[in-house]
C-alpha cells in the first residue's frame, strides 16, 4: 500500500526539549492511524510537522509524495487539520468563517451548506461564532475541514470536551472518510473513542513512535492471556474454573470473566464444563479494549526501560 505520510528519523527541538525525537513513522494511504500517548508525547508536534506548519531540525518528511518544508502550500491545500481548540473567528458568523476557509482553500461556496448540514450546524450559520457552544464550535471546525475534500485529515484531540453527539459526529466523519479512501491521523488520549476505528495504532512517548501495529496484532503481542466471558444456567458449576489448570484468573462481573493460558485451550475448558453438567449459555471472547492495550503497552515500555 502506498504511503500518505512518511517520517524518517525526524527530530524537532524547542530549546533543550526534543518534542519529536528521531521519529520514524509510516501512514499508509487510505488508512486510519491513531496516535496515542500522554501529554507531551509529541502528537501535536507530529501533526504540525506533517503540514509544514513547523519545520524539522533533522530527518525527512514526505506527505502525499511531497516535502512539506518545500511544498508546504500544496501539502496544506490537500490536507486539513482539526486542532484541539477549533480556532474560529468569534466575531464572524459561522457562514463567514466557512466562506473564508473556502476562499483560501479554493473550495466552492456551494460546498458550505452541505458541509454545515452534514454536521448539524446549518441552523446557526448566521450567528456569530462567539455565541456557539463548545460542541457547535467543533462541528463548525469539522465542517470547515471538509470543505475542500482533503486527502489527508489530521485530527488533534478533536473530541476533547465534546458532548456525546458531537463526539459521535467526529467518529462518523472518520469512518465516512476512511470509506472514501482518505488518510486519517487521529491523535487522542480518549481511548474508548478510538476503539475499533484504527487500522494502525501508534503509541508515542518522548517524541518517538515506540509501538506500532494494528489493534489485533498489538493485542496478540501485549495481552498474553486471552480473556473469555462464560456463563451458565447453574453458575455454581463455573466455580470449577477458578482452579482450572488452563485458567490464569477468573473474576465475576455479571458473568465469569476468565483469562486462559492460551485461546486454543478454550474448547477443552468448555468440554470439561459440559461434562460436569453445566448448561452453558454464553461463551464470548473478551477482546482487549484499546484502553487495556494502551496500559499493557505502557507497562511493557516501563519494563523495557
Amino acid at each position, binding site marked *: 500500500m502506498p504511503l500518505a505520510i512518511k517520517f524518517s528519523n525526524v527530530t524537532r527541538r524547542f530549546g533543550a526539549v526534543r518534542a519529536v525525537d528521531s521519529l520514524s513513522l509510516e501512514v499508509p494511504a487510505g488508512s486510519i492511524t491513531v496516535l496515542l500517548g500522554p501529554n507531551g508525547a509529541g502528537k501535536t508536534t507530529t501533526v*504540525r510537522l506533517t503540514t509544514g506548519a513547523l519545520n524539522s531540525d533533522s530527518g525527512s518528511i514526505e506527505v502525499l509524495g511531497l516535502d512539506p518544508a518545500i511544498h508546504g*502550500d500544496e501539502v*496544506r491545500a490537500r490536507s486539513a487539520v482539526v*486542532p484541539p481548540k477549533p480556532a*474560529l473567528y468569534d466575531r464572524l458568523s459561522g457562514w463567514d468563517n466557512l466562506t473564508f*476557509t473556502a476562499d483560501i482553500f479554493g473550495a466552492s461556496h456551494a460546498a458550505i451548506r452541505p458541509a454545515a448540514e452534514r454536521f448539524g450546524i446549518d441552523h446557526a450559520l448566521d450567528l*456569530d461564532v462567539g455565541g456557539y457552544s463548545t460542541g457547535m464550535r467543533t462541528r463548525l471546525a469539522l465542517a470547515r475541514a471538509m470543505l475542500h475534500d482533503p486527502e489527508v485529515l489530521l485530527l488533534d484531540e478533536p473530541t476533547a470536551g465534546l458532548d456525546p453527539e458531537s463526539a459521535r459526529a467526529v467518529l462518523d466523519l472518520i469512518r465516512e472518510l476512511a470509506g472514501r479512501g482518505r488518510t486519517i491521523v487521529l491523535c487522542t488520549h480518549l481511548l474508548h473513542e478510538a476503539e475499533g476505528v484504527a487500522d494502525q495504532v501508534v503509541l508515542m512517548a518522548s517524541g518517538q513512535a515506540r509501538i506500532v501495529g494494528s489493534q489485533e496484532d498489538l493485542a496478540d503481542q501485549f495481552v498474553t492471556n486471552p480473556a473469555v466471558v462464560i456463563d451458565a444456567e447453574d453458575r455454581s458449576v463455573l466455580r470449577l474454573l477458578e482452579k482450572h489448570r488452563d485458567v490464569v484468573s477468573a473474576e465475576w462481573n455479571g458473568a465469569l470473566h476468565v483469562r486462559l493460558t492460551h485461546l486454543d485451550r478454550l474448547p477443552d475448558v468448555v468440554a470439561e464444563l459440559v461434562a460436569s453438567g453445566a448448561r452453558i449459555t454464553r461463551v464470548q471472547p473478551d477482546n482487549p479494549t484499546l484502553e487495556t492495550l494502551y496500559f499493557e503497552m505502557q507497562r511493557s515500555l516501563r519494563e523495557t526501560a
Partner: protein
Amino acid sequence: MRLDRMLTVARIDLRRLFRSKDYWIPMGFLAGVFFVGLPFLLLTIVTSTTSSELVNKIGEVLQSLPGPVQENVVGETPAARGAYMLAVYLLAPVAIVVPLTISSAVGAHAIVGERERGTGEFLAHSPLTEREIFLGKMLASLVPGFAATAVGFGIYSLLVNLKVGPLVGGWFFPTPAWWVLIIWVVPPFIAVALSLILWVSSRVRSTAAAQQAATLVSLPVIFAAYGVSSGLLINPVVAALTIGVVAWTLAVAGLITGSRSLHRERLLGFGGDG
C-alpha cells in the same frame, strides 16, 4: 503569491474590525475630537471673540511665525488671520495623528491577535503563504487609516471652510500643500508605521506587548509625519512631493522587509520575543 488570497485575508480582517465596537467607539471618539470637536471649539472662540486682549495675543502669535507662513496667512482682521492660521498650520497637522493611530491600533493586534485567539493555528495549517498573510493584514490595517484620512479631512475641510471661509474670502482648505500632504505624504507615513508595527506584532507574545511596542514604534513616525507636514506647509509643494517619494520608498522597503519577517511558526506561538 496570490492576490485573491491576500485580499481574502484583508477582507476577513476588515469584516471582523467592522463588528468590533470596542475598536470603533474609542477610535470614533478620537477622530471626533481631532477632526470636529477641537477645531469647532477653537475656531468658534477665535472667530467670535470680542476680547481685545485675545485679539492682540493672536496678532503676537502671527508675528512670531516664519516669514513665508506669514505671507500665506489670509484674512483682513486679526481674528480672521488667527482662525486661518489655526485651521491650516496648527489643527490640521495635529489631526494627522488620528489616521496613524487608527491604523496602528489595528496593526498591533493583527498577527499577535491570531496567536492569542488560537486562529493562528488555522492560518499556519492553511495554504496561505506568509507573504499573503502579512500583506493581507497590512492592507486591512491600512484601509481604516486611509479611510480616516479621507473622511476625517473631508469633514474637517467642510467645518473649517464653513467657519472660517466667510472671513477669508471663501473656501480655502485644503490648500495646495495640504492636497499633496493628504494624498501623497500621509498614506506612505501610515504604511511605514504599519510595516514596523506588524513586524513587532509578529514577534511579541501578547497583544498588550504589541500595543506597547506599537506605541514606541508609531510615536516617532507620528512626530515625523507631524513635523514633515508642518514644515512642508512652509515650503513649496515640490518639497512635499519629494518627501512623499522618500516616504513611499521607505514604505515599500518596509513592506518587503516586514513580509519576510513573518514565519509560520510564529503564528503557532513559537519564536516570539518578550
